[in-house]
Each structure stands twice: as structure tokens, then as C-alpha cells.
């Protein structure tokens, strides 16, 4: 009960501190907005950046219409603008009215290699996706064409030999295989790798949440030293309250503030930046619970191994920055080499970040147990180590 009194008092003090509010709540929202917008064009996945594709095709046939329809498919964020002439397409490109140019020459569909893709600078990732889609489409078309030819030839031969042919069955089987191929093509193109499937805004919302919640380790430790400096800690110890209750109060205070911070951040990013935190808020809160627990534990470690506020500030800031960098809060984990990705697994924020992004794209509860256990373990270990040292202090 007394621990809770101390915790609520600490959380209230943090919330009254304008500097802390600016740093812990407004800053991550602002950074999410800036980084999420700035890196919109370079982050791939199902959230392909909005692309205007200029297409010139002198000949309109089933193949050209089909590829254009595929490119315009919902979920790809591609707007197709048809140019009347090749020159018009080039003009558009020069004026940057389109991001990528595509020329489908006469006869395209038979000789599919001749399609020309022209990206403008800065839109390389979009052009790469379009190129992959066209290649896939071409391969599929060739397969279908080849299969059709083979079946029809076989049928013709059998017919010539006087064998009985059930054309209806052949047609049905052909249609079924074509549909299957078309579906496979769709899956291949649209389904991105999971890690890349969140938008840049989503990724940085998760990244900033993981990073700025980590700052509570520093804030919690500073609060401890502040109490010691102003003698309120001594005064607390003169009340009929055990040392364990006081430590628990400081721990819960940090934990509570991390929660308030996260809830505010989640609400703000959802309503102001339209960040989709996934379909299960319960899963988000589940991971936030364990992450806040780990962070509160780390605050005790920082408090235990620093001597004053200034030192806690320096050690905490440096620690948060290193962990943020390693844990993918500054640069997406996807761009890390394999070795660094493995090192990232040692940081609590990377466990929180990957869990948040997984939840955003939809994940099972079973996938969240391991991160939860790891984060809980970090918290418990921190409490265990720090409680010995802090009680001695």
C-alpha cells in the first residue's frame, strides 16, 4: 500500500515536470512524425510508397491490359497514368509528374523482355517492385502460354490418331490451372516479408515507443538520486516503511509512468499520425506490460550503479542511445547485417520493437510469449542485482 503511495507520488511528480513531458511524451511523437514521413519512400514491403506510374503502350491487347490492371491492384498504392505517346511519357518524367515510366512496346506479351522501366532519382525502390511484378507476370504468362500450347497440341495429336477427347474436361482443367497460376502470381507480388510489411510510420511509432520508454530507466534512477540528495529518502526511511517497500514504490513509480507515457503515445500516434497498432490492443498492452517491467528494473540498476543524478543522466543517456541504435530504434533492423541482428537480440528494446511490429501485421499469441519471458527476465534480474546494492546504500 505504501509502495503504491510512493509510486503514485513519483508518477505525479513526473507528470508535473514540463521538461519530462516534453522529452518523454512530445518528443517521441514528433520524431515518429518526422522519421515516419522522411523515410516513407525508402521503406519497402506491403506499404509500398505511393507511386505514380506513367505507361506508354502503342498496342492495347489482353496482355498489356492485364499487366496494367495487376499494377493498379488495390494495396499496391500505384496510380497508373497512360501516355498517348512516348514523348509525352518522357515529358512527364522530366517534369517529375510520374515517379516511374514504363514502356510496353508493340508485341509485348509475346516477347516480354522488351518492356522498359525508367525510374526517376529517389524512386528506385518503387521501380524495383514494378520490375519484379512485370518479371513475375511475364514468367507466369509464358508458363500459361506454354502449358496451353502443350495441352492443345497433345489434344490435336490424340484427335488425329482417332482417340476420344473430352474437350470439356481439358478446358476445365486448363481454366483451373490458369486460375491457380494467377492466384500464385498475386500472392507472390503482394505478400511481402513480414518485417517489411509495416509502414515507415508504423515502424517508427514502434521504434520510438521502444526507445523513449527506455528513457524511464534514466528518469527513474535520477528520481532515486534526487530523493537521496534532498533527504526525502532519509525522511521516507524514518517513517514506519520498510526499505523493500520504498524500493518497490520507486520501481512501481517508474513502471506506472512508462505506462502513462505509452498510452499517451499510442493514442497520439493513432489519432494524429494514423498509426495502425494492429488488430489486438490486448497484445500491445501485453508486451508493454513486460517491457515497462524490464525498463523499471533497469532504472533500479542505473540507480544502484551510479552515485548521483549527473552520473545517472550521463550513463542513462549513453546507455539508451547505444541500446536504441543496436535495437533498431534509429535504423530499421531489416537493414542490419546478420551479426548485428543477433546482437540486437541482447537489447530489451529490440524485443519490444519486433513484438510491436509483429502485432501491427498480425501475429499469434504464441509468438509473443518468448519476448514477454525475455523482458520479464531482464526485469527480474535487474531487481535482484540492484536490490542488494541499493539496500546497502
Amino acid at each position: 500500500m505504501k509502495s503504491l503511495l510512493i509510486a503514485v507520488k513519483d508518477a505525479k511528480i513526473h507528470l508535473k515536470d514540463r521538461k519530462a513531458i516534453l522529452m518523454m511524451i512530445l518528443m517521441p511523437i514528433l520524431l515518429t512524425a518526422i522519421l515516419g514521413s522522411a523515410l516513407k519512400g525508402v521503406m519497402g514491403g506491403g506499404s509500398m510508397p505511393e507511386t505514380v506510374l506513367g505507361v506508354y503502350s502503342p498496342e492495347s491487347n489482353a496482355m498489356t491490359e492485364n499487366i496494367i490492371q495487376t499494377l493498379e491492384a488495390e494495396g499496391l498504392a500505384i496510380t497508373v497514368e497512360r501516355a498517348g505517346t512516348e514523348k509525352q511519357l518522357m515529358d512527364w518524367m522530366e517534369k517529375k509528374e510520374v515517379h516511374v515510366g514504363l514502356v510496353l512496346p508493340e508485341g509485348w506479351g509475346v516477347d516480354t523482355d522488351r518492356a522498359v522501366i525508367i525510374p526517376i532519382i529517389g524512386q528506385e525502390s518503387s521501380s524495383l517492385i514494378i520490375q519484379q511484378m512485370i518479371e513475375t507476370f511475364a514468367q507466369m504468362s509464358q508458363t500459361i502460354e506454354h502449358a496451353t500450347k502443350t495441352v492443345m497440341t497433345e489434344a490435336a495429336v490424340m484427335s488425329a490418331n482417332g482417340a476420344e477427347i473430352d474437350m470439356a474436361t481439358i478446358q476445365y482443367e486448363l481454366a483451373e490451372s490458369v486460375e491457380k497460376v494467377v492466384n500464385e502470381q498475386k500472392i507472390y507480388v503482394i505478400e511481402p516479408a513480414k518485417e517489411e510489411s509495416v509502414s515507415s510510420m508504423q515502424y517508427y511509432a514502434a521504434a520510438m515507443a521502444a526507445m523513449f520508454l527506455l528513457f524511464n530507466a534514466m528518469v527513474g534512477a535520477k528520481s532515486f538520486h534526487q530523493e537521496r540528495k534532498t533527504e526525502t529518502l532519509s525522511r521516507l526511511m524514518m517513517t514506519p516503511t520498510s526499505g523493500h517497500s520504498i524500493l518497490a514504490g520507486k520501481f512501481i513509480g517508474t513502471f506506472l509512468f512508462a505506462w502513462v507515457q505509452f498510452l499517451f503515445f499510442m493514442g497520439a500516434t493513432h489519432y494524429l499520425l494514423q498509426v495502425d497498432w494492429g488488430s489486438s490492443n490486448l497484445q500491445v498492452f501485453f508486451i508493454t506490460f513486460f517491457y515497462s517491467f524490464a525498463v523499471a528494473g533497469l532504472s533500479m540498476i542505473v540507480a544502484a550503479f551510479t552515485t548521483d543524478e549527473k552520473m545517472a543522466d550521463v550513463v542513462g543517456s549513453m546507455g539508451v542511445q547505444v541500446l536504441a541504435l543496436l535495437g533498431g530504434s534509429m535504423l530499421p533492423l531489416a537493414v542490419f547485417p546478420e551479426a548485428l541482428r543477433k546482437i540486437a537480440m541482447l537489447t530489451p528494446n529490440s524485443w519490444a520493437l519486433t513484438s510491436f511490429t509483429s502485432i501491427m501485421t498480425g501475429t499469434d499469441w504464441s509468438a509473443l510469449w518468448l519476448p514477454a519471458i525475455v523482458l520479464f527476465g531482464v526485469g527480474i534480474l535487474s531487481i535482484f542485482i540492484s536490490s542488494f546494492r541499493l539496500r546497502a546504500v
Partner: protein
Amino acid sequence: MLTLSNVKKSFDSREIIKGVSLQIERGESFGLLGPNGAGKSTLISMICGLIPYGAGEIRIDGKVVGKQLKEIKQIIGVVPQDIALYPSMSAMDNLLFWGKMYGLSGKAAKIRAQEVLEIVGLADRAKGRIETFSGGMKRRINIGAALMHRPQLLIMDEPTVGIDPQSRNHILETVKSLNEQGMTVIYTSHYMEEVEYLCKRIAIIDEGKLIASGTKKDLSNRLAGGTVLKLTVDSLHPLFIEELKTLNSVEKVIVKPGEEIDVHLHSKMEMVAEVILLASRSGIHIHNMQLQEANLETLFLQLTGRTLRE
């Protein structure tokens, strides 16, 4: 109420408190005097159970400090030397918090906080944030926080450091009033006038040792030559100096440069006339005469060779 029996404390093999014994009765106002670094705060920390004592025994209301600490903490209220409050919280919120830490329920804490604000004269500033208060107001809330749970023993560690005279007077009046209502008070300071005003019994501590204790009268009687008659004369005649030393009331005579003489008396004012008569008989003209009366400062100086504020 409080008994200290040969209490000792060492840090890193250096003895900080060297066998202090004291007894303070219920309802008493007891002063603990000593210069900075004398060991007053360490002694108080040990009484509060904040730091363990090395040897001896401390009992409060019959309970042994260190063994029945939880019950003892409920009996004592401590006013620390520093402003141990939360600056960004209001006076009322601070009092409520400290009250609840002593086990007061929400409603009881609110009623008591209002009473305490009246006692310290800050009822009209209940909602003000501590960081906006003057030094004196902060000190008054600092005292108020220790009164929330109605302690039987109030321990005040230099509660008037660095404040304006008006706030100091208010604090002294408050403490006097609390004591008159039956609260036992231990008041530590290096301002002897505060201790002289508030306390019936006084202990002087220096370098971890209790060097004197008793009522003000007891301590005054311990002074030898505590009253000093400072004379400035036209000439220092050796015969006059020798005759001065032979007077019954004179403890000692110190001749200083610039024709100055300090005559240490056995504290009686009537002896001044005897000195003046002798000077007149010896043909010595007194240009200036100043009588410095004996007080705790003088006693401290006599006992330790240092002043209280050194």
C-alpha cells in the same frame, strides 16, 4: 522518554560518537548544542534508527532502537536539517503524503493537514507549490510534515538554518507552544540563543563527546571567569595589574596590546565597582569599559577553545 547509554559509533575505524549517555524526560525541551561536524546529526540519525549504533543502547519510551524500530518510528517525528519535501507538489499534497506514510487514512490525513497548516501559519498557502515558497515557509512546512502523525517526541535538526528573522520567530514560537502542550522536543542548533530560549536542559557535544549537560543555571555555574570586563586604559602600570590579580572576584587578567586588559570575573556585576576603585587609587584613567557576560558561547569557548560557529 529517551535514554542513551554509552552510545558509540565508528566509521572506517574512526570513532565519530564516543560513548554518549543522556536521559531526556517526557515533556521536556532539550537542547543539543555543538559546532558543525560535532556529531549532532549522526547522533540524531542513530536515535531515529537511520544508521545503526556501534555500541551501547538507545531506548525511546522503553523500546530499544534497532529492535522495535517500527513502533519507535510511529512515536517520533523528525525535522531534518534539509528541506525534505517534494518541490513540485503543493504544501497540502506534501503533508498528505507524509501523513499517509505514517499510516493516516485519506480523510484523517486531510483533517490533520489542515490543522498542521494552521499550526505553522500557512493555511492560506495550502495549494501553493513548495518551489514557489520562501526559505522560511519551506522550513515551516518541513516542520509540519513531522507533525502530521502527532509524534510524542519531536526531533529537530537545525530547523532554522538560513531563514529570515520573522520565520525564525514563528518557528521558535511554534516549537515552544508544542512543548507547552506536552510534546517532548529535542532541538539541535549551533545558534545558542535559540537553545537558550527554548530549552530547559542543554547538552553540549563536540568531536563526538558530550562535554557538558544540565540546566542553563548548572552550566553557568560551571563557568570560571565567564564574565569578562574589557578595559582600555591610558597606561599599563605593573602594580595595578598585580593588584587586580589579587582581588577575590578576579579569576585571571590578560594584558593585550593597545593598553587593553581583559579581566575575567567570577560573574558578579558588583565586582566591577571594586576594579574601578582600584584603578582610581592607582592613578589609572579608564578610557573605555565593556562588560561581556557569561553565556553558553563563553562556556563552549572555555570548554573547547573554539567558538560554536567555527
